[in-house]
C-alpha cells in the first residue's frame, strides 16, 4: 500500500517538557520551604502568603498538576503521534491546551497563597479556575480523540488505553468533586456536606493519585521503557488484564482515607477490600515494567535513563504494596494522621512520578533537539543524589510517624496519657523533620543538575520542529483478516473503549456515593446539632483561608487514646452543616473537633498572636494579621443565603440580618477578651470570628452530655 508522508509536531512536546522542568523546580522549592518551616517556622517571615497552611496546597498542586501534569502532556503528545502514526489532529487545540494549562498554574500560584481555597485536598482551587480546568481538559480530550480517529495504526497500543481512561476519569472526578455554590468571585461552598463531602473528596483524592499520578504515567512507562530498553514490553497479555483490573478496582478504594472516621462502616470496609485487591493489578504493572528489561540489565549500568526507570518502577511497586497494607484498619490506626502517610506518598511522587519523568526527559530531549545529552555523567549524578534524596526524605518520616503515633497511644499505669501534651510528641520528631528537609534539598539539587543538562543540551542542538514520517493510510472500511480473533474488536474501537472504561470507573463511585447520599440511616440526625452562627461561619471561612486543616484534623476516632486526649469521638450527625467538611488528613498539631470551650477566649487570642506564648516550643506559625485585619461583615449575609440554598436551616431573618447578628456576637466576645488588660481587640477584628468558630467546635454534643 502506498505510504503517506506526514509530520509529527515536536513543538508542543518541547513546550510541555520545558514547562515540566520549570514548574518542577518551583514545586520542589516550595516543598522544601514548607518542610523547613516545620522546624523553623520563622521562615515564613510572618507573611500570610508564606505560611505553611497556604504553601502546602501550593506545593501539592504544583507537584501534581504543574510538574507531573506537564510531563504527562509532553509524553502523551510525543508518544500518541508515534503510536497512532499521525500528527496531532489540531495544532491550534494543542496550543490552546498548552497555554491554558500554564495560565491555570499561574492562577494557582497567585490565588493559593492569597488564601483563596475550597480546602479540599488537591482540589483547593476556587470555582472560576475549576471551570477553566474542565474546559482545558475537554480541549485536550477533543484533540486526543480527534487524533485517534484519524490514526494510521489500526490497533490502539496499551499506552493509549491508559490515556483514554485518564481523560475520562479525571473529567468525572474533577467535575463531581468541584460541584460548589459560588458566593463571590473567589469563594464557594461545596454542595456536599460532612460525611458525604468527605466521601466525595476522598473518592476524588484517592483517584487523583490513581488517574493522574498512576494511569497516565503507566501509559508513559509502556511507551518510553520499551523505547529506552529497545525491546518490547514483557507481556502484552498482562498489560490487558492489568489495565482493566486497575481501572475497575482503583475507583473503589477512596474510603481507605476515612477509616475509623464517621463514614459508615460498610463504605470503610469496601474501601479496605478493594485496596487489598489493588495489589494484583498494580504489581502486574510493576512486573511487566521490570521484566521488560530482561536481558538488558547490563545496559542499566551505563544508562542514566534506565537507572531512573528501574528505581521509578521499584518505587511504584513499593508504594502500591504499602498502600493496601495501610488500608488495613489495624495498620491504618497507627499510620493515619502521622508523617507515615507523607512518607508513603513521597515514595510514589518522588520515586515513581519524579524518576519516571526525569528518565523520560533525558531520553526525549536529545531526540527533539537532534543531539546527544550534554552530560550522561551529570545525569548519573542526578540519579544518585535524587535517590539519596528520596531515602533521606522517606526514612525519617517513617520513623517520625511511628514514633509519634506510639506516643499518642501511651498510657500511665493510672490510665492517664503518658504524653498528655500533644506538643511533646511534636518536639520529639523535630530532628526527623530536619532530616526530611535535607532529603528534599538533595532532591532539589538533583533537579538543578537536570536543569543544567537540559539547558546545555538545548543549546547544543536545534529543535526538530516537524519530524517527517510515513505510513500507509488505514482502509476506510476495516476488512477482517482471515482467522482473526474476536479480541481485536475493542482494541480498534476507541469510542467503544472510552464507553466501557467510563462504565467500569463509574460503578465503584456510584455504589459507594449514592447510598451515602440517599439513605438517611447512613448519617443519623442529631437533634442537638444546629447550624453555625453567622459569626462562626465567617470564622470557619478564615480557618479555611489559612489552611488550618493542613495540620489539624477535626475527627476524633473511637479509640481510648483519642477520647482521653480530645473527648467524645466524632459522630456523622455532627457534620451535617459542614460545607465543606474539614476533617483534615494530618495531625501536625492536635485534633480540634472538641476544642470548643477547652480554653478561654484569651488563650486563643494569645495563641494566634504567638503560639509559643501558650505552648513554648510550638512550631505553629504566628497569625498576627488576624489581630489587625477587619472582618468583612457585608460578606456574611450572602454566605448565609448560600447555606440556605444548600439546605442549611437558617431562618429568613437570620439571612437578612446576618451581619448585625454576627456583630452582636462579636461584641460579646470582644468585651470578654478586653477584660484581659494586655488585650485590646475590636469586635470587627478577624480574630474574634475565628475564636467564635473555635469555641463552637464540637460543643453541640458536649451540651447534650
Amino acid at each position, binding site marked *: 500500500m502506498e505510504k503517506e508522508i506526514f509530520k509529527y509536531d515536536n513543538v508542543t512536546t518541547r513546550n510541555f517538557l520545558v514547562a515540566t522542568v520549570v514548574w518542577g523546580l518551583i514545586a520542589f522549592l516550595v516543598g522544601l520551604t514548607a518542610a523547613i518551616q516545620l522546624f523553623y517556622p520563622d521562615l515564613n517571615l510572618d507573611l500570610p502568603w508564606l505560611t505553611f497552611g497556604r504553601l502546602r496546597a501550593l506545593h501539592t498542586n504544583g507537584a501534581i498538576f504543574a510538574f507531573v501534569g506537564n510531563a504527562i502532556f509532553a509524553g502523551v503528545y510525543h508518544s500518541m503521534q508515534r*503510536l497512532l502514526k499521525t500528527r496531532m489532529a489540531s495544532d491550534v487545540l494543542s496550543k490552546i491546551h498548552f497555554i491554558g494549562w500554564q495560565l491555570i498554574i499561574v492562577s494557582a500560584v497567585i490565588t493559593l497563597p492569597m488564601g483563596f481555597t475550597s480546602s479540599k485536598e488537591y482540589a483547593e482551587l476556587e470555582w472560576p479556575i475549576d471551570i477553566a480546568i474542565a474546559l482545558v481538559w475537554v480541549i485536550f480530550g477533543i484533540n486526543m480523540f480527534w487524533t485517534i480517529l484519524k490514526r494510521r495504526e489500526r490497533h490502539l497500543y*496499551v499506552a493509549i488505553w491508559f490515556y483514554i481512561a485518564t481523560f475520562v476519569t479525571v473529567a468525572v472526578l474533577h467535575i463531581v468533586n468541584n460541584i460548589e455554590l459560588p458566593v463571590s468571585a473567589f469563594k464557594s461552598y461545596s454542595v456536599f456536606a460532612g460525611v458525604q463531602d468527605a466521601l466525595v473528596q476522598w473518592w476524588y483524592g484517592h483517584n487523583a493519585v490513581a488517574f493522574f499520578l498512576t494511569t497516565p504515567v503507566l501509559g508513559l512507562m509502556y511507551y518510553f521503557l*520499551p523505547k529506552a530498553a529497545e525491546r518490547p514490553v514483557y507481556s502484552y*497479555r*498482562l498489560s490487558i488484564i492489568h489495565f482493566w483490573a486497575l481501572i475497575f478496582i482503583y475507583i473503589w478504594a477512596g474510603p481507605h482515607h476515612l477509616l475509623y472516621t464517621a463514614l459508615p462502616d460498610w463504605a470503610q470496609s469496601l474501601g479496605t477490600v478493594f485496596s487489598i485487591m489493588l495489589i494484583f493489578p498494580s504489581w502486574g504493572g510493576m512486573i511487566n515494567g521490570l521484566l521488560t528489561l530482561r536481558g538488558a540489565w547490563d545496559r542499566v549500568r551505563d544508562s542514566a535513563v534506565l537507572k531512573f526507570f528501574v528505581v521509578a518502577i521499584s518505587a511504584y511497586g513499593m508504594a502500591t504494596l504499602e498502600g493496601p497494607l495501610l488500608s488495613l484498619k489495624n495498620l491504618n490506626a497507627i499510620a493515619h494522621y502521622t508523617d507515615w502517610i507523607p512518607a508513603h506518598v513521597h515514595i510514589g511522587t518522588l520515586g515513581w512520578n519524579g524518576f519516571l519523568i526525569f528518565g523520560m526527559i533525558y531520553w526525549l530531549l536529545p531526540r527533539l533537539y537532534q543531539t546527544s545529552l550534554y552530560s550522561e555523567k551529570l545525569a548519573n549524578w542526578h540519579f544518585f543524589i535524587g535517590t539519596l534524596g528520596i531515602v533521606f526524605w522517606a526514612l525519617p518520616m517513617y520513623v517520625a510517624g511511628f514514633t509519634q503515633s506510639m506516643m499518642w497511644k501511651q498510657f500511665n499505669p493510672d490510665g492517664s496519657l503518658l504524653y498528655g501534651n500533644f506538643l511533646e510528641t511534636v518536639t520529639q520528631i523535630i530532628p526527623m523533620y530536619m532530616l526530611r528537609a535535607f532529603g528534599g534539598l538533595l532532591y532539589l539539587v538533583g533537579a538543578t543538575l537536570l536543569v543544567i543538562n537540559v539547558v546545555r543540551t538545548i543549546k547544543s542542538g*536545534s529543535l526538530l520542529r516537524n519530524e517527517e514520517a*510515513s505510513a500507509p493510510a488505514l482502509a476506510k472500511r476495516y476488512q477482517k483478516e482471515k482467522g482473526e480473533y474476536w*479480541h481485536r474488536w475493542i482494541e480498534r474501537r476507541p469510542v467503544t473503549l472510552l464507553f466501557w472504561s467510563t462504565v467500569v470507573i463509574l460503578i465503584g463511585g456510584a455504589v459507594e456515593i449514592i447510598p451515602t447520599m440517599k439513605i438517611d440511616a447512613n448519617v443519623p440526625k442529631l437533634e442537638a446539632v444546629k447550624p453555625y452562627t453567622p459569626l462562626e461561619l465567617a470564622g470557619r471561612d478564615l480557618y479555611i483561608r489559612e489552611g488550618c486543616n493542613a495540620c489539624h484534623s477535626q475527627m476524633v476516632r473511637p479509640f481510648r487514646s483519642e477520647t482521653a486526649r480530645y473527648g467524645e469521638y466524632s459522630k456523622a450527625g455532627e457534620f451535617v452543616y459542614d460545607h465543606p467538611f474539614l476533617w483534615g488528613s494530618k495531625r501536625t498539631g492536635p485534633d480540634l473537633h472538641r476544642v470548643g470551650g477547652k480554653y478561654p477566649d484569651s488563650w486563643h487570642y494569645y495563641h494566634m498572636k504567638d503560639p509559643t506564648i501558650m505552648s513554648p516550643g510550638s512550631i505553629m506559625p504566628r497569625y498576627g494579621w488576624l489581630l489587625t485585619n477587619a472582618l468583612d461583615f457585608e460578606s456574611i449575609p450572602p454566605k448565609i443565603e448560600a447555606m440556605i440554598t444548600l439546605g442549611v436551616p437558617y431562618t429568613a431573618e437570620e439571612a437578612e440580618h446576618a451581619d448585625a447578628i454576627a456583630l452582636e456576637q462579636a461584641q460579646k466576645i470582644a468585651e470578654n477578651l478586653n477584660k484581659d488588660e494586655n488585650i485590646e481587640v475590636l469586635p470587627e477584628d478577624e480574630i474574634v470570628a475565628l475564636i467564635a468558630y473555635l469555641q463552637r467546635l464540637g460543643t453541640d454534643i458536649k451540651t447534650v452530655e
Partner: protein
Amino acid sequence: MLKFIKHSMLSMDSVEFYPMVALLLFGSFFLGWLVYSIMMPKADAEAFSRIPLDVTEPKDQSHE
C-alpha cells in the same frame, strides 16, 4: 451502621440471591479479561507489543 440496613435486607425475599449474583458478576469481569488475553494469538500479542518500536524513522529533517 450496618444495623440500619440489615433490617430492610432481612425483610426481602430470597435476599441471598443478590450478593451471589454480585460476586459472580464481579468475578466474571476478571475471568473475562483473563480468557480474552489468553486466547489472544501469540503472533498478535508480539506484533502489538512491538508497536512503539516500529516507528518510522525521520527522513527529511526541517531544522529550526
